[in-house]
């Protein structure tokens, strides 16, 4: 086994385990911490692919912004872990069955979809450095890029409107 393969297996184990613990742990704060670990390991996968731009953006956006948002919301709500009642047993059983069935179906689909090439050709040209991605993003994908900024602006305004405290007199 090459060291890269070992790195991949370690990262994959961390990703899956923390993703599962996110769902399984009772305390929402612990879930958020496990989710941060999961995001960091996914950023590690991106680094393994040599996709530096995406790794950095992923860490900034997910582990930075989104997780802070989650943590602040959890703290605002002041949730107790005893608060949550479990779903009825039949629903939980159904969830487990759906999990098993979906994974089996998706795996078989991907196995049988197309014979996977044994070796992967490299064109040799640079396609994922920050320089190349920036050029593509601002030439071919300029209009979607601007629309993404509009989307974020609209989302920001909407969030401010939604979470504004209403006056009690109204």
């Amino acid at each position, binding site marked *: 086994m090459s060291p*890269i393969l070992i790195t991949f297996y370690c990262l*994959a184990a961390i990703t*899956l385990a923390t*993703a599962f613990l*996110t*769902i399984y742990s009772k305390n*929402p704060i612990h*879930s958020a911490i496990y*989710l941060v670990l*999961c995001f960091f390991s*996914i950023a590690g996968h991106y680094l*393994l*692919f*040599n*996709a530096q*731009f*995406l790794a950095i953006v*992923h860490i900034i956006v*997910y582990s930075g*912004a*989104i997780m802070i*948002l*989650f943590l602040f*919301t959890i703290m*605002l*709500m002041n*949730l107790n872990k005893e608060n*949550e*009642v479990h*779903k009825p047993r039949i*629903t939980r059983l*159904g*969830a*487990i069955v*759906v*999990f098993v069935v*979906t*994974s089996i179906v*998706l*795996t078989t689909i*991907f196995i049988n979809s197309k014979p*996977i090439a044994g070796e*992967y*050709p*490299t064109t040799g*040209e640079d*396609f*994922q450095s920050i320089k*190349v*991605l920036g050029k*593509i*993003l601002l030439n071919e*994908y300029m209009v*979607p890029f601007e629309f*993404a900024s509009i*989307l*974020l602006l609209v989302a920001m305004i*909407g969030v401010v409107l*939604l*979470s504004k405290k209403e006056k009690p007199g109204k």
Partner: protein
Amino acid sequence: MNNILNQIGIENYIFLSVLLFCIGVFGVLYRRNAIIVFMSIEIMLNAVNLLFVAFSTYHQDSEGQVFVFFSMAVAAAEVAVGLAILVSVFRNLGSIDIDNLKNLKG
């Protein structure tokens, strides 16, 4: 530049993404806490992003990474709006148990 997939193989990444996606589906169905449901949705989005990057390397093409960038922007907007809705739901109902959200039930 050596292709990383020669040593790992695309099928490993496919299995990883499928499992991660299924864990997300499982979380949406299993938990009642709406925040954890949101986290599961994030896990699903990340599984898809990971597969995007894997196939972008497979085809030696940068378009996949551009799409991951856009889906990250959409995910950020979605989480912000969703959490704001959750905060106002919590303010009105006093809990974020998704089984309590049945005012629209006919």
